[in-house]
C-alpha cells in the first residue's frame, strides 16, 4: 500500500515540468538539493545521535571543490564526483578527532569548522571569488524541466539509499550506538567505527548534493552553501520533518523552501513567519511532522 502511494506521488512529482511554470520548477529544484542535505544530516542526528551544527562545512567543501575544478576545465560530472570525494575526505578529517569528544563538544567543533571554511574562502578570494562568489562556467542543463528531473532523480535515489541504510542491520547498530553508546559497546559493537561511517556517508551525500547545486545555480557563494544560517535552515528542515525518519527530512526541506517562496510577498516578514511556524512545530511536535504521523500509527 505504502509503495503504491509512493509510486503515485513520484509520478505526480515527475509530471510537474509538463504543466508547471519554470519559476515553480526552479524553487522545487533547489528544495530537492536541500532535501538531500537534510537527509544526510538526519542520518547523523537521528541515527548516530550526534548533532552536526556544521552541515555546510561538508556541503561547502563539495560545492567549492567542484566549482574550482570546473574553473580549471575539468568536465562537469568529474567535478561533481571530485566534490563528493572532497567532502568525504574533509568529513573524515573533521570527525576522526571530533568524535572522540563527548556531549556538546562534537557540535561545537563542527560549528567552528564552518567558520574556518568561511574564513579560508574569504582570505583566498583570488582563487575562490571571496564574498562575491565563484562563477561556474558550466551548468547541468539549460532546460528548467531537465534540471528539475535531475534534482528529483537525485533526491529519490539518495532517499532510497539513505532510507535503506537506516533500515539495514548496520542502521540498527547505528541507532543503538546513538541511543546508548555504553550498552552498544557492551554488546560488542565498535561505536566509534559505526559513527565515523555514518559521518562519512553523510559527508558523501552532502558533498555530492552541494556540488550538483552549484552547477545548477551557476555560482558558488558563501551565502548559499557555507553560511551558518544555511546550516540552521537544514537542521530546522530535518527536525521539522521528523527526526529518525530520513524521508521526513526531505519533506521538511521542501516545506520550508516552498513556504519561504509563497510568503515572499511579506518581504522582511517572510523569514520570520517561516521561523515561527518551524518553532511551533518543534515545540508541540518534537517528533516532527512525519514522526508525529508515524507515532500515531504505532499507537493504533
Amino acid at each position, binding site marked *: 500500500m505504502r509503495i503504491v502511494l509512493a509510486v503515485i506521488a513520484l509520478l505526480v512529482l515527475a509530471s510537474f515540468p509538463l504543466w508547471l511554470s519554470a519559476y515553480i520548477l526552479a524553487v522545487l529544484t533547489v528544495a530537492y538539493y536541500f532535501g538531500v542535505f537534510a537527509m544526510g544530516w538526519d542520518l547523523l542526528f537521528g541515527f548516530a545521535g550526534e548533532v552536526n551544527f556544521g552541515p555546510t562545512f561538508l556541503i561547502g567543501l563539495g560545492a567549492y571543490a567542484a566549482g574550482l575544478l570546473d574553473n580549471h576545465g575539468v568536465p562537469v560530472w568529474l567535478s561533481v564526483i571530485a566534490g563528493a570525494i572532497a567532502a568525504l575526505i574533509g568529513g573524515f578529517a573533521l570527525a576522526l578527532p571530533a568524535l572522540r569528544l563527548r556531549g556538546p563538544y562534537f557540535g561545537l567543533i563542527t560549528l567552528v569548522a564552518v567558520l574556518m571554511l568561511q574564513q579560508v574562502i574569504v582570505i583566498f578570494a583570488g582563487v575562490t571569488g571571496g564574498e562575491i562568489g565563484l562563477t561556474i562556467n558550466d551548468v547541468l542543463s539549460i532546460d528548467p524541466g531537465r534540471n528539475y528531473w535531475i534534482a528529483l532523480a537525485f533526491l529519490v535515489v539518495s532517499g532510497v539509499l539513505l532510507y535503506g541504510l537506516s533500515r539495514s542491520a548496520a542502521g*540498527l*547498530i547505528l541507532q543503538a550506538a546513538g541511543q546508548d553508546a555504553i550498552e552498544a559497546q557492551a554488546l*560488542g559493537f565498535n561505536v566509534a567505527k559505526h559513527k565515523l561511517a555514518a559521518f562519512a556517508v553523510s559527508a558523501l551525500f552532502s558533498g555530492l548534493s552541494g556540488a550538483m547545486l552549484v552547477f545548477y545555480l551557476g555560482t558558488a557563494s558563501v551565502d548559499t552553501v557555507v553560511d551558518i544560517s544555511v546550516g540552521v535552515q537544514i537542521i530546522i528542515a530535518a527536525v521539522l520533518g521528523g527526526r529518525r525518519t530520513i524521508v521526513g527530512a526531505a519533506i521538511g526541506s521542501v516545506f520550508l523552501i516552498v513556504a519561504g517562496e509563497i510568503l515572499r510577498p511579506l518581504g522582511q516578514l517572510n523569514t520570520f513567519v517561516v521561523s515561527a511556524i518551524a518553532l511551533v512545530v518543534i515545540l508541540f511536535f518534537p517528533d516532527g511532522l512525519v514522526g508525529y504521523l508515524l507515532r500515531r500509527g*504505532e499507537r493504533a
Partner: protein
Amino acid sequence: MSANLLEVEGLTKRFGGLVAVENLGFSIAGGEILGLIGPNGSGKSTAMKLIMGIERANAGSVRLAGREIVAWPTHRIARAGIGLVFQHSRPLHRQTVLENIKLALLPDSLFQLAAEKSVDAKARAIGERVGLGAVLDRRPATLPFADLRRMELAKAIARDPQVVLVDEPFAGLTMAEVENFSALIRSFREEGKAVLLVDHNVKGVAALVDRVLAMYLGKRIAEGKADAVMRDETVRRVYLGGKIETHARAIAPEKSGIPLLRTEDLSVFYGKAQALAQVALDVHEGEFVSVVGLNGAGKTTLFNAISGLIPYAGSVRWQGSPLAGQSPAAIARGGIVQCPETRELFGDMSVVENLELGGQHQPAPARMARLEWLYELFPILKSRRAQLARTLSGGEQQMLAIARALMMNPRLLILDEPTLGLAPVILEQLSKALARLRETTAITVLLGEQNVTFALPHADRVYVLEHARIIWQGPPDRFAVEAGAGYL
C-alpha cells in the same frame, strides 16, 4: 568445576583523590555464581565497569580464560566473551522486542545490510526462553518493567558470553518475578558460564550464589559461602554497626495534634517501577527522625516527593496543609530544605561563596551571624573558607553541603545519605557535628541512611524502608532486636 574463566587481580581505580576500588582480586570458575556485594558507594559497580572496560583501571589485571583483557576497549571485551546485563538501558523504541534481541545477534560490521536468515529464528528462541514469547512483536515502551529486564537478559544471552555480569538482578521485581529470574540465572550456571551478581546485600542473592565477596570502601572485607559472610564480624559491622548507642529523646507531639510533616498513602512510580508504596510518616516539631533502608529502597524518592521534585500520589502535609501543587522553590522557602545525596555544590565557587549563596534571601547581619555559627559547628570549613568547593575532600564537601542547607534557616532539614562514600574517620566528625546540631538547636531533622551505625545514635524515632514500603517503625533501641536481622 572447570578452571577459572574470570580472574581479577590487584584491580585499582582512583577518581581524583577517591579510591573507588583498591587492590581487588577474585576469580570465578565456569559454572559458578559469585555474588559481589557491598553498600552504596563501596565500589562494586565500579569493579563491574572495570571488568567490562567501561572504566579504565589504574592498575591490576583482568583475565578472561587466561587472556589479559584489562586495557581492551569495551566492544572487544564483549566480543571476547563477557556480557553485561544492565539494570537500566535505553532500548530501541521504534523497533519491536524481537528486533531489539536481533540487534544483539548482529556482527560488528558496517557492510551487513540484512541480517542472516538464522538470526530471526535464534532471536525468537531466546525470546521464548526468557518468557517474552507473547510480546515479541510489541514495542518496548508498551512492556511492563519486568519484561524490559527480561529483554536485557535476552540481549546478554544472545551474545552467548562465557562470563555474565548482572547488575542488581532483582531490583524492582516482585517475588514471583524474582523466582523466574533466579531460574534463568541458574540456567547460566548449568551452561558452564561464570556469573557475577552485583547487589547491595547478601540476603537478596544468598539462595542463588555459590560464593559471596563483600566490599566496603573499595576493598574486599570478606569472602566465602553466603551464610559465613552473613556471620562475618566485619560485614556485620559495616551493615549493622558494632554496638549501637542510642540517645532517643521523648519528643512530645504537637498539642494541636497536627505534626510538622505528615505523609499519607504516598506512592511514586518511575514509568512502570513502583519506587514508593503507600508510605505514611510523621515528623514532629524538634524531632530527629531517621529513615533507614538500603540503596534502592526508596529513601531519595521519598525525600524528592516531599520537596516537590517529582510527581506523586497520596498526600504530603506541612503543618496541616497539603504541599501538592507548590513549586520546589516555594516548598524550600516554606522551610523544608533538602541536602541531596549528590551534594550539588558549586564546584568552581569557594566555600564561603557556596555558603553565602545559601543565605541569599536573608539580611546581611543575620547572614553573618549564621555563618559564624556554622563555622563553629564545622570548624574545618572556616579554615577552608577560600578554597574551591571541588578541591575539598569528600567529607568536607558533605559538611559544606549540610552547612549550605543550614544557611537557608530551615525548619525541617532533610539529609539524604550524608555518609555516602565517606571513610569511617570522617563519619565520626560528621556524627559529632550532627550531635552538636541536635543539642544546641531546636531544628527538626529527617535523615535517610543505609548506614545504621550513623543513623541510629541521633535518632528519636526510626522508620525502616524496604522495597518501597515502610516495614518497621519504632524507637532506635528496639531496632537491633526487631528489625536488624532482616537488614544484612
